[in-house]
């Protein structure tokens, strides 16, 4: 072996070590790590492969978009990443925790403590007022009566809705409903926010207001935000965009 060959091997070895340390660092900085996600739906003899070997990393404090045409598997992937749906194969690590290794009740508790959800259809409780909708989420996290009311009011204030606290969802506009939903998602200070088409039901003005709120969550409050969307307006605030088509994750853009 020549000296040059030895040098090359040594440099290859150091490069390997460097790669390992980068990988470890990435795991630490990644809030979401998904590996080999497969989702197969079986209906009688027919099998439908909704997600095909998906790998995805989302850094802490980033806004990650998941885009793609209808039926591409975006919502299925979001459900899996949130621990709501169990994949046929693969693993998901959220904040360093392998969520599908947790028992059902521990996984529910993990979601409760760490994930805030924003839904396309708002999913507010119609019988409850805006403040009560937020209070429910706080109550679930063990925050009781007076403290919950105080915090709920503070959260509504953050989304500019403290004046509408006692209104029922049917008395609010679409944008206001989504802001209540965001306030609810922020209850208990979760580190991950998962949003499904958060601007789909909103007009331009309200859409921009919600986008601005999501940007603030990530950039000023350090939350990791995963958004499934068709809305090109959100791309401007995203750190990374992944495209899903026919269950396959295409190369995304990272800014």
């Amino acid at each position, binding site marked *: 072996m020549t000296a040059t060959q030895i040098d090359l091997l040594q440099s290859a070895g150091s490069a390997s070590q460097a790669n390992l340390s980068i990988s470890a660092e990435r795991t630490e900085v990644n809030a979401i790590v998904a590996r080999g996600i497969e989702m197969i739906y079986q209906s009688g003899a027919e099998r439908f492969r909704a997600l095909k070997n998906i790998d995805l990393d989302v850094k802490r404090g980033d806004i990650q978009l998941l885009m793609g045409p209808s039926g591409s598997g975006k*919502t299925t992937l979001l459900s899996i990443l949130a621990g709501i749906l169990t994949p046929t194969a693969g693993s998901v690590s959220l904040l360093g925790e392998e969520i599908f290794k947790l028992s059902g009740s521990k996984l*529910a*508790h993990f979601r409760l403590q760490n994930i805030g*959800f924003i839904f396309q259809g708002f*999913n507010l*409780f119609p019988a409850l007022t805006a403040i009560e909708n937020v209070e*429910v989420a706080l109550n*679930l996290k063990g925050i009781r009566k007076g403290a919950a009311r105080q915090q709920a009011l503070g959260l509504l204030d953050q989304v500019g809705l403290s004046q509408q606290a006692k209104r029922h969802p049917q008395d609010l506009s679409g944008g206001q409903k989504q802001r209540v939903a965001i306030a609810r998602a922020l209850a208990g200070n979760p580190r991950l926010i998962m949003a499904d088409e958060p601007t789909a039901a909103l007009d331009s003005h309200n859409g921009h207001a919600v986008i601005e709120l999501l940007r603030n969550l990530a950039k000023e409050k350090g939350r990791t935000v995963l958004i499934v969307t068709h809305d090109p307006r959100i791309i401007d605030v995203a750190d990374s965009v992944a495209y899903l088509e026919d269950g396959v994750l295409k190369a995304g853009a990272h800014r």
Partner: protein
Amino acid sequence: MASIARKNLFEDIPRFIVAQAGIVFAVSLVTIQVGILKGFTRSTALLIDQSSADLWVASKEMVHLELTSPIAAEKVVQAQKVPGVERAEALMIRSSVWRSDSGLITPVRIFGFDPDSRLFAGWAVSQGKLSAAKQPFSVLVDRSSLKNLGQTQLGEQGKIGTLPARIVGLSQDTQSIVSSIFIFTSLENANAYATAGLNTSVSCTRQTKGDLTCTNNFENAPLDGVAAPLTTPRSLSISDPISYVLVRAKAGQDLQQLKQRLEAALPNTRVYTQAEIADQTRVYWSDRTGVGFILSLGATVGFVVGMVIVGQILYSSVTDHVREFGTLKAMGASNWVIYSVILEQAMWMALLGYIPSMAFCLGLGAWTQTAKGIMILITPATAGGVFMLTVVMCVGSALFAVQKVTRVDPAIVFKA
């Protein structure tokens, strides 16, 4: 936590009212069926329960209060002589037919007793006086039976058999649901009514040792015969048939021992305590006739129908809110949190269905008792039992509805 259950319930008031109406109907159905069953059971032995006799001496063939073979009135005298007996009285029960002036014919059951004593007649007289029954051809009837006899008020007159019967008093809470109309009068009047339209004779034969054996003979008088002139009913003789001897024991007497002494002193009789004869009568009606079975079946059907109605209401309510339950699940709420919402909703529905339905049933019971003499018996125990049943019904239905939530696809929350 803000009560999602309560808020969901009152979110849509017209819908809530419709749902509660279903529960009120179901609870009322169960309460009325159970009330009628209990009222019926109680009413069959009402007169026994209200009497103050410690012991009832009856024929050995007695089946229930109104179905027994006659015993001779001399048994009263014999019973009175048994040590430990404070008082013995005759009770005569006979069947006949009431004819109103308008021609209405009604089967009646005549109870003949001593109106000066309360050994038999422990019940309340709401109008007139019990002692008025001592007057010839005078009777008391239950207030609720007046209309069924074709009469409207006190003082009116009808006929029992061929003899006149003037209503001189109204009793209260005395009529059995399953029997003919009860008529209360003195022993003398009862005996007269029992034998009205009959020719009676006594035939005696002297036995070899010199004893006399006498037999009462009753034959129907010819319908086209000339009516006998109306005479004051005669006093009972020792050979007249009666139905029971009612006995009041002296203070401190052991009733079981007194029973044995009476049975020994009065051949061919059986002696019952008040509780025994009441039980035997109730058991006959509830077990040996179809009435008890039908009413029990009605109560069971009421319960099942109630379960189905409440189940449908709760299931439909859970289905309407399934997305909200899915949202709670997605947010990380434990299953128990979701079940508790459904259970709380069920408890509210139970409570808010129970209160108006019980008020309705109590009102209905008061009306049927007054107007029809039909008792819907709702005791505190019945009311408590029905409440427990309502809770079981609602919670059972809630558990059924919970299945819907446990099967809910959490991914439903992401569907617009």
